[in-house]
């Protein structure tokens, strides 16, 4: 059956949403018309550009650079802080409108959705009219603009919505690939990031067309399965379903955070690890899994990153066990440079129904399990700050670190 997929992408999402909310509350100035960015809090050193307006783009401001760099490029730049609850509200309202047109929607991230209109030709005779209706409704009712990409599969629809912004509709059907997609730089292809693009440049591949015509055998030899994947993407070959839920089988859980101040001694660093382990541990128990591999990552004040992982003998979901392993990893990894960012990840998950005790381990698992359960229940009922480790009291660290501070906030994903 012929498929018809829409990809809807909000233009400068965070900024448009903030602008729309402000206009509703009587702001005279539209943030989208002036050089402005949504940026993190500089005092706690989360000061990077999250989203930029189109006038800000003209100054060469890029997403991900520091606010300091951005201000150097444009001194009159307006910086607004992120408000995630507005974003959730906007995303939800947009989804409600989309649901009026099709039940098959995959919310790919907070500002992107895939819509499946396959086999609805009798309902919507002209897809361009349909796309125009959806786009205009979002613009007039919710006050922000979107790009819509239309094609036969999710990948092409996604590339299409990225073609020219803002407030536009593009098609990218297989017969249009050569004309519309192949001249684009290879970085514009989904799954080609910084690391991959360098490798491709070394092979003299600069456009998507060059990648599509490249020998797939050679690509597979050089880049393993990823080479295969991006070659297929460059040729527009992709067949995944519009999944109703974005939930995929989880491979691991991790949280990381940038600290408000540099951590210079082991004690404070371990406290941050504990605070991260609290978040990771609670999420792990919530997913009813145990983990067998624990890893940590550290970024120092020169922005150099390193990481290390360890496989443990007994699968666990205990905050304390994760923390102990994280600390031992930290001691082996840390070379004494001031730390600005740390993360804890757990992988190799297995079901948490039962676990194998080790004879060499004197740890009281039952007691620890009861304690964890009690803490989780208190926190779920009364919030993360209801109960905290006394070592984190007055430490300047949050009792649970990591995350954007909003529940169920959908973030970007590398799997279509």
């Amino acid at each position: 059956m012929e498929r018809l997929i829409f990809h809807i992408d909000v233009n400068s999402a965070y900024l448009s949403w903030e602008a729309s909310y402000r206009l509703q509350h009587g702001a005279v100035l539209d943030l989208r018309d002036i050089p402005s960015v949504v940026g993190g809090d500089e005092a706690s050193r989360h000061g990077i550009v999250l989203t930029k307006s189109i006038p800000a783009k003209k100054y060469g401001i890029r997403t991900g650079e520091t606010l300091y760099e951005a201000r150097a490029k444009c001194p009159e730049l307006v910086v607004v802080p992120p408000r995630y609850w507005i974003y959730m509200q906007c995303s939800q309202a947009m989804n409600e409108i989309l649901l009026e047109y099709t039940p098959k929607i995959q919310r790919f991230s907070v500002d992107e959705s895939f819509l499946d209109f396959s086999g609805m030709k009798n309902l919507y005779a002209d897809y361009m009219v349909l796309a125009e209706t959806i786009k205009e409704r979002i613009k007039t009712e919710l006050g922000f603009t979107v790009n819509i990409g239309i094609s036969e599969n999710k990948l092409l629809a996604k590339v299409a919505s990225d073609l020219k912004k803002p407030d536009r509709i593009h098609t990218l059907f297989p017969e249009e690939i050569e004309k519309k997609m192949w001249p684009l730089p290879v970085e514009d292809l989904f799954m080609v990031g910084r690391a991959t693009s360098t490798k491709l440049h070394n092979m003299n591949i600069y456009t998507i067309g060059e990648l599509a015509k490249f020998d797939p055998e050679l690509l597979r030899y050089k880049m393993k399965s990823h080479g295969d994947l991006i070659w297929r993407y460059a040729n527009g070959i992709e067949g995944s379903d519009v999944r109703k839920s974005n939930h995929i089988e989880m491979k691991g859980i991790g949280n990381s955070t940038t600290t408000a101040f540099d951590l210079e001694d082991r004690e404070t660093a371990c406290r941050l690890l504990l605070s991260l382990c609290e978040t990771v541990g609670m999420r792990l128990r919530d997913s009813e899994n145990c983990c067998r591999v624990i890893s940590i990552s550290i970024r120092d004040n020169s922005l150099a990153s390193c990481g290390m992982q360890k496989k443990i003998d007994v699968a666990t979901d205990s905050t304390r066990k994760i923390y102990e392993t994280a600390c031992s990893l930290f001691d082996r990894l840390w070379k004494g440079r001031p730390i600005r960012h740390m993360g804890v990840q757990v992988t190799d998950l297995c079901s948490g129904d039962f676990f194998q005790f080790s004879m060499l381990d004197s740890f009281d698992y039952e007691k620890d399990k009861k304690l964890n359960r009690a803490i989780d229940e208190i926190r779920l009922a009364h919030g993360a700050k209801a109960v905290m480790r006394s070592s984190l009291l007055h430490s300047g660290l949050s009792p649970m670190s990591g995350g954007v501070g909003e529940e169920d906030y959908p973030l970007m994903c590398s799997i279509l």
Partner: protein
Amino acid sequence: MKVMNQPIEVISYTDDKGDIRPIRLRLQLGDEPLKVIKIDRIILKHVEKLAGNRMLLFRCQSFDGGVERLFEIKYEFNTCKWFLYKM
């Protein structure tokens, strides 16, 4: 009309269908004394969903001492607050 977005006090009437109708509002602009405005006519009622935030917009008319006045007030569902939006 000028955009004000000033929080105001409102007396409103809600019927058994959940339909809200503002009757009277009280506001203080700058150093001026408190002022009560009676809403004589509602010209337009509209549910606004900008940024996913639901607000009721009323365009109202009042005849204050023979002077006809036009203004817009808004009710925010989330916070239960009234605003004088434009005057």
